[in-house]
């Protein structure tokens, strides 16, 4: 087995809140192979967006390691990290907030190139901007428009072009299609998959939408209150979900198909709480239909129950 491009080891990010420490990311271990997509799913407050930002060091981790091509980038000094940023980029959820409203499309796409000085010369930068616009399917006539003059889909294309401008290897996609209408969402998903094929990109695709994640990912990690509860191949997860939370999540997806209409409903009770000063044990225990007293004794780590299928549950 080759070395993964990105690997996290016991990665932790805690935030200080008035009520105590919020364990947003709490001991997450992930691997993402080169040219593959890891989907990260979970409900709001599970720490999936924080995880992406900690991996990119947009937030500083509280503990653990992020290995990029085998090296722990969390120990990098500022200059080395800035060099590193050419290789790893991010696409955001909100195509409104993630583009500087005072910059035109060409300025937004050229900004990373100017910052990192990967290309010199006005003409060369301009050519690169046009090349990026062609790549993401954004008509060249929009080059001088401002983000607020464009619709959500086009804005998201600008965000993708900006991320690709430095020719990165690895992109964290933080809910990139959640704010878009379904027909536009499909256009953007197709674009992202094409780009991955053409450029051999590696994605970490963060989303709350399981059907989108399944569509685009090779592997999926399910998160609950800051922890990864299950991780395996995409098809395996859907065919054979092991963790009770994964099972509940899959059961809750409304399927656009009448045959699913009268299937037995096993909806879990209760709501997601916030992981402030969490007690030891399984975070899902309070809502779990299969809970046992042992669940709340100590933290439960991921265990490989079958080749490539990891689950953090006492039942396995």
């Amino acid at each position, binding site marked *: 087995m080759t070395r993964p491009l990105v690997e996290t080891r016991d990665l932790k990010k805690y935030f200080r809140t008035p009520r105590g420490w919020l364990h947003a990311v709490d001991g997450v271990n992930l691997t993402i192979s080169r040219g593959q997509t890891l989907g990260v799913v979970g409900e709001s407050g599970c720490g999936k967006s924080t995880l992406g930002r900690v991996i990119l060091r947009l937030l500083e981790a509280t503990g653990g390691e992020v290995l990029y091509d085998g090296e722990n980038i969390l120990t990098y000094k500022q200059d080395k990290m800035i060099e590193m940023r050419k290789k790893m980029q991010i696409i955001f959820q909100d195509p409104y907030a993630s583009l500087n409203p005072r910059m035109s499309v060409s300025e937004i796409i050229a900004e990373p190139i100017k910052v990192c000085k990967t290309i010199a010369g006005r003409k060369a930068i301009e050519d690169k901007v046009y090349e990026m616009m062609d790549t993401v399917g954004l008509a060249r006539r929009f080059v001088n428009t401002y983000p607020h003059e464009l619709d959500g889909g086009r804005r998201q294309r600008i965000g993708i072009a900006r991320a690709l401008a430095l020719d990165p290897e690895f992109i964290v996609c933080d809910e990139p299609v959640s704010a878009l209408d379904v027909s536009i969402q*499909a256009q953007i998903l197709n674009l992202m998959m094409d780009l991955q094929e053409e450029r051999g990109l590696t994605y970490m695709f963060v989303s*709350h939408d399981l*059907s989108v994640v399944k*569509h685009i990912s090779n592997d999926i990690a399910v998160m609950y209150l800051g922890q990864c509860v299950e991780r395996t191949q995409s098809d395996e997860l859907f065919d054979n979900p092991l963790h009770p939370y994964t099972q509940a999540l899959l059961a809750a997806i409304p399927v656009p198909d009448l045959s699913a209409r009268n299937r037995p409903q096993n909806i879990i009770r209760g*709501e997601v709480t916030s992981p402030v000063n969490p007690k030891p044990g399984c975070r899902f225990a309070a809502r779990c239909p299969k809970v046992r007293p042992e669940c709340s004794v100590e933290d439960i780590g991921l265990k490989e129950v079958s080749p490539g299928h990891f689950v953090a549950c006492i039942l396995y």
Partner: protein
Amino acid sequence: MEERLLEIKDLHVEYVTDEARVFAVNGLDLTVNRGETVGLVGETGAGKTTTALSVMRLLPDLVGRITRGSIILDGIDITRATEADMRLIRGEAVSMIFQDPMTSLNPVMTIGEQIAEVLHLHEKYDTKEEVEHRVDEILRLVGLPPERKGEYPHQFSGGMKQRVVIAIALACEPKLLLADEPTTALDVTIQAQVLQMVRELKEKLNTAMLLITHDLGVVAQTCDRVGIMYAGEIVELGTAEQIFQKDERHHPYTVGLFGSIPDLTRKTRRLSPIEGLMPDPTDLPPGCRFHTRCPHRMPVCEVESPRPSYNGGHLIRCHIWDDRRCSQ
């Protein structure tokens, strides 16, 4: 008693601002029968919310207005009713659940007060005790402990707030419930809880529901009949079976919508989305509104608005399926 509860005919709604005139709803026909759930599906800007607000007569003052058509609710034409009549109708005969539970409740009133208010406004009970008793009963109905009625909205989670909103909407046991994206702001497991509760309550109270959503999955789990909206019109309308049956005749936009969502049961490498964007509602294209994006566009689509064609109650508004044209 007549079977039809709500009958919208040829509804046109416009928003007029300083800058532009927005054609939000353009000739919408829709009926909802007693006890039935009708889904209204479409993307942003299709005119779904405007339709519901028209039924409530709560279009924004000075800006939005109904320019043509009628809305008959239980024999009363809402477009002609006085404001005083409307106050009696709202909350009593028809009520509405809004999309965002976070902002739909008054932050400085307890949830108990907010539920009791609708009962007071419609003079449902004479004494304070009866009202309080009813509030407790409704809270239990939506799965909230009545002891929490003295708490304020910010003390509840999103899913619980939406339950409160539903409790307010159902307090007077309305004949019609307009639900505008009631679960869009909620997490998937909470969405499942809320949807199941709504289904059960609807059954229990025999309330009809117009469910507005962009999510075909929610529609499939909930609705008896489904209308697909595009640019202020219903382009396809039929029973859930007719709409979700893959090998039936469909409007190209419906086909596009289904092609845009990833299928959990099959492994497809590429999605087949609809090309292009929603048309600008201030400057709608002539002929069929969808022709600018339609893969089956014909010359006639650009000039002539398609007439609805029916096939056993299954309406499609498209030149391709217009039999009269085919026979020519």
